[in-house]
């Protein structure tokens, strides 16, 4: 069997994308299509006193103006996406899902108040300006540390406080561990908000065909099947009456997994009401308010160690910012808890989580999804401990890694799927050693660093490790069909947003069926092709859908061999699948093409034998027992200009262990992009809110997504520790690039400015903030 998995195979989807012929949601054009725009609140927290849409309705070209009142009984909050955790004792969770349009109170700036549908987007925006809305602003809950103060205004007035959830998780006995520790380090760590910043904003086109009673929806979602199911339920249609298509998506990164956004219900709803196709394309300004965000947490964190640097325990009380609603449950902070022990054997752990409502856009996972915060906490604590104990930062990590024999390793807490967190496999030390070698850690520490410092330069090195829990359930499925043309069709339910699924999935199939990767046509994200599954999130596409495809390919292979054995009159074990043919080994002229075999399997006359199925087709599903844990080490060398606080990253090294690699080219691309986003999280990207909950940088001119000039060349190395949880041995890698970057950046920065004895305990930074931190240090001296 020729090896195709693991090869650097060029992508099947590229020619369409490169020529501008790939279909994105905004490319959908239907005769008679109307265009929607939203009136959104200028205030973060305000009572809606009255709304007058009469002028808007009268504007020529306006077809409909809808407010919450106009929706009548069809106005319903939610639905929530992830139900609250049932498995932890004493958990508090107040479910307050998003609403389609503001009814009585605005809870974040940019929340939708009215929907306008018009003949063009231009007219719809004109009409939005015609609406007179009387908003009575009240004090906003912005700072999460003040949100639980007794005097704080309430985001949801039916609750006693802004507490959305409270959850304590523990392992062992942290208090006892602390009591016998040689060193206890306690720090406050603050992480602020950012945006996902996919280049394509969200968008929806809905087309109701009254004659066939069928609704087609094109949606920039990562999860077309749950979206279809939700729309059907809300609109009182059967699931088979709704087809959701997630065509080419211009980047997801998490927020396109949120469901259902108000627009995802409203646009199909109004299209059905009006009996005309309706398009809504989020513009970039809306995107900064209406698309979910992530990262804000405040930790009071503590680590207890022996004097030789063995971690005895970690404890943290932390606040997590949910924003105005909490449909995504506890996924992000549970991920944080799952990563605060990092890659280390931490016998005692205590975590007290409080989730708070604020008058800000809601938070849902963004690439990393709570993990960067967890890794930042543990890696920072370790760095500070290393400094205090006089141990090299690399050495202290080595001393605490989970031993390779300890896998599967029980964390004794629950993960984002409310299941026990188990790390399936890993071998951490070789990964770290490879990264240290690639960056020249020892040489830098002993020679290069001191030499550069002697020249007056402020160059620093950093090296951190991280785990990434990936590939969570519940399941995905796939159907594979051999067509009479000999081409293979694969249909799966996950959406795709640039991860190369059209190629990596095709590789899995091509290897089993002996065809060219270019002959495998993969369909993702169309519920009419496949309608079982959840979506692309949590670095699970390659793991869960990949293994479903693998299982399905094996089943089709079995059918091929069975039929070919009969046709070629040769035992199955002597048959080979290669070049689109089934051959009898060593007898080259005894062969049949897959296309001919497919025809034979689907006869027009005669009878299909009892107990068999027509066609060379199979559907299979895969659900992992639990998530697979990837591991990696990042290292960097950076230089600071101590006068301007501008930072240049000189070198960046990643060594990643995500199990079996399907396509290293695609994997490396994922890592490059992840690191770029992590650099944004560390030094460029921060959503700045004022005390009224106004976002001050709602444009790409002021929200700083790194460009090619800020992102360095990234050198990538690989190790492969297979996951025992799935036949391919894969683990996810989509978020790996992003997770450790803030922690790494902080360490390297401190290393570059040794005289200042800086402690970086916050993210994101900026040159301005760095300047302030240095000033504070100098004042203290």
């Amino acid at each position, binding site marked *: 069997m020729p090896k195709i998995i693991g090869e650097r195979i*060029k*992508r099947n*989807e*590229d*020619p*369409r*994308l*490169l*020529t*501008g*012929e*790939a279909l*994105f949601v*905004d*490319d959908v*054009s239907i005769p008679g299509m109307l265009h929607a725009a939203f009136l959104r609140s200028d205030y973060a927290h305000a009572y809606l006193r009255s709304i007058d849409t009469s002028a808007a309705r009268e504007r*020529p070209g306006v077809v409909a103006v809808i407010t919450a009142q106009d929706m009548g009984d069809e106005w319903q909050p939610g639905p929530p996406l992830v139900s609250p955790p049932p498995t932890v004792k004493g958990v508090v969770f107040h479910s307050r899902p998003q609403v389609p349009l503001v009814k009585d109170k605005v809870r974040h700036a940019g929340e939708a108040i009215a929907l306008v549908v018009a003949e063009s987007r*231009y007219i719809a925006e004109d009409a939005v300006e015609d609406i007179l809305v009387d908003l009575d602003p009240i004090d906003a809950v912005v700072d999460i540390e003040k949100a639980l103060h007794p005097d704080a205004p309430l985001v949801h007035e039916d609750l006693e406080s802004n507490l959305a959830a409270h959850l304590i998780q523990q392992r062992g006995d942290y208090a006892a561990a602390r009591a016998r520790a040689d060193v206890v380090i306690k720090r406050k760590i603050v992480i602020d908000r950012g945006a*996902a*910043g*996919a*280049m*394509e*904003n969200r968008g929806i086109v809905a087309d109701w065909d009254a004659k066939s009673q069928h609704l087609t929806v094109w949606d920039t979602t990562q999860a077309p099947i749950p979206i279809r199911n939700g729309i059907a339920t809300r609109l009182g249609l059967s699931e088979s009456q709704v087809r959701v298509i997630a065509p*080419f*998506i*211009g*980047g*997801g*990164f998490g927020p396109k997994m949120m469901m259902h956004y108000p627009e995802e219900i409203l646009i199909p709803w109004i299209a059905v009401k009006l009996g005309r196709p309706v398009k809504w394309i989020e*513009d*970039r300004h809306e995107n900064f308010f209406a698309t979910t965000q992530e990262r804000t947490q405040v930790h009071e964190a503590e680590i207890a160690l022996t004097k030789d640097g063995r971690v005895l325990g970690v404890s943290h009380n932390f606040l997590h910012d949910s924003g105005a609603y909490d449909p995504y449950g506890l996924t992000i902070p549970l991920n944080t808890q799952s990563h605060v022990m990092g890659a280390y054997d931490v016998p005692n752990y205590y975590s007290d989580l409080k989730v708070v409502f604020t008058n800000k856009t809601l938070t849902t996972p963004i690439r990393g999804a709570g993990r960067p915060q967890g890794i930042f906490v543990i890696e920072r604590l370790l760095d500070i401990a290393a400094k205090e104990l006089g141990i090299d930062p690399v050495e202290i990590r080595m001393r605490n890694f989970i031993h390779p024999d300890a896998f599967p390793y029980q964390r004794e807490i629950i993960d984002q799927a409310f299941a026990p967190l188990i790390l399936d496999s890993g071998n951490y030390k070789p990964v770290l050693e490879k990264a240290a070698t690639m960056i020249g850690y020892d040489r830098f520490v002993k020679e290069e660093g001191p030499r550069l410092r002697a020249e007056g330069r402020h160059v620093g090195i950093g090296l951190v490790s991280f785990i990434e829990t990936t590939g969570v359930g519940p399941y995905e499925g796939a159907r594979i069909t051999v067509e009479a043309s000999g081409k293979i069709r694969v249909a799966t339910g996950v959406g795709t*947003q*640039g*991860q*190369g699924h059209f190629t990596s999935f095709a590789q899995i199939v091509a290897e089993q069926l002996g065809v060219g990767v270019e002959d495998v046509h993969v369909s993702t994200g169309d519920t009419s092709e496949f309608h079982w599954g959840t979506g692309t999130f949590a670095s699970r596409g390659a793991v869960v859908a990949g293994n479903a495809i693998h299982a399905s390919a094996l089943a089709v292979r079995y059918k091929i061999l069975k039929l070919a054995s009969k046709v070629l009159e040769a035992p199955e074990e002597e048959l080979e699948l290669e070049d689109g043919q089934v051959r009898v080994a060593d007898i080259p002229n005894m062969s049949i093409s897959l296309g001919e075999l497919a025809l034979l399997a689907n006869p027009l006359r005669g009878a299909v034998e009892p107990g068999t199925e027509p066609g060379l087709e199979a559907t299979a599903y895969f659900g992992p027992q639990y998530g697979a844990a990837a591991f990696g080490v990042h290292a960097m060398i950076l230089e600071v200009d101590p006068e301007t606080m501008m930072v240049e990253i000189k070198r960046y090294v990643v060594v990643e262990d995500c199990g079996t690699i399907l396509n290293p*080219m*695609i994997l*490396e*691309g*994922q*890592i*490059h*992009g*992840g*690191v*770029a*986003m992590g650099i944004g999280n560390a030094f460029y990207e921060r959503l700045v809110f004022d005390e009224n909950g106004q976002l001050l940088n709602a*444009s*790409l*001119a002021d929200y700083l*997504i790194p*460009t*090619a*000039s800020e*992102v360095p*060349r*990234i050198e990538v190395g690989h190790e492969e520790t297979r996951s025992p949880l799935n036949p391919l041995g894969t683990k996810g890698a989509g978020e790996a*690039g992003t997770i450790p970057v803030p922690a790494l950046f902080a360490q390297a920065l401190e290393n570059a400015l040794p005289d200042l004895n800086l402690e970086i305990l916050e993210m994101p930074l900026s040159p301005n903030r760095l300047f302030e931190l240095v000033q504070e240090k100098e004042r203290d001296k």
Partner: protein
Amino acid sequence: MSDLYEVAVTINGKKYQRSVDPRLLLSDFLRHEINLTGTHVGCEHGVCGACTVLFDRQPVRSCLMFAVQANGHEIITVEGLGTQEKLHPLQEAFMEAHGLQCGFCTPGILMTLVPFLESNPEPDESEIRHAISGNLCRCTGYQNIVEAVKLASEKLRT
């Protein structure tokens, strides 16, 4: 409603004549009037570069021009480069070097690079990075775009 204006414009070598509202952005005109949807819109305030097209052979942000201003001018969009069957060498290089992931920013990057490589056929890495610094890409971390440009520069010279 303001009056409509006649626009006669050559796009990818083909002449088009349309009546447009003067406020219609060139990006919307190309995408929704001419149906050349390869030009993407990412920000409509001139930062992301996704909507870059060639206007009289110069790269411009099509979201920062009105369609009416294209009257009498020549535009090339990504559809004017190669076809799926016969990619332009720059497109080929992007495929070979994995210079795209979701592909949303790609047309704008290609249209930025075409004139760049014409005026600078042998760019070094820092020149390449500077040339594309007006195009945001959230997927690739830019590295393979840089590789693709190097590869394209070789292809275009031979």
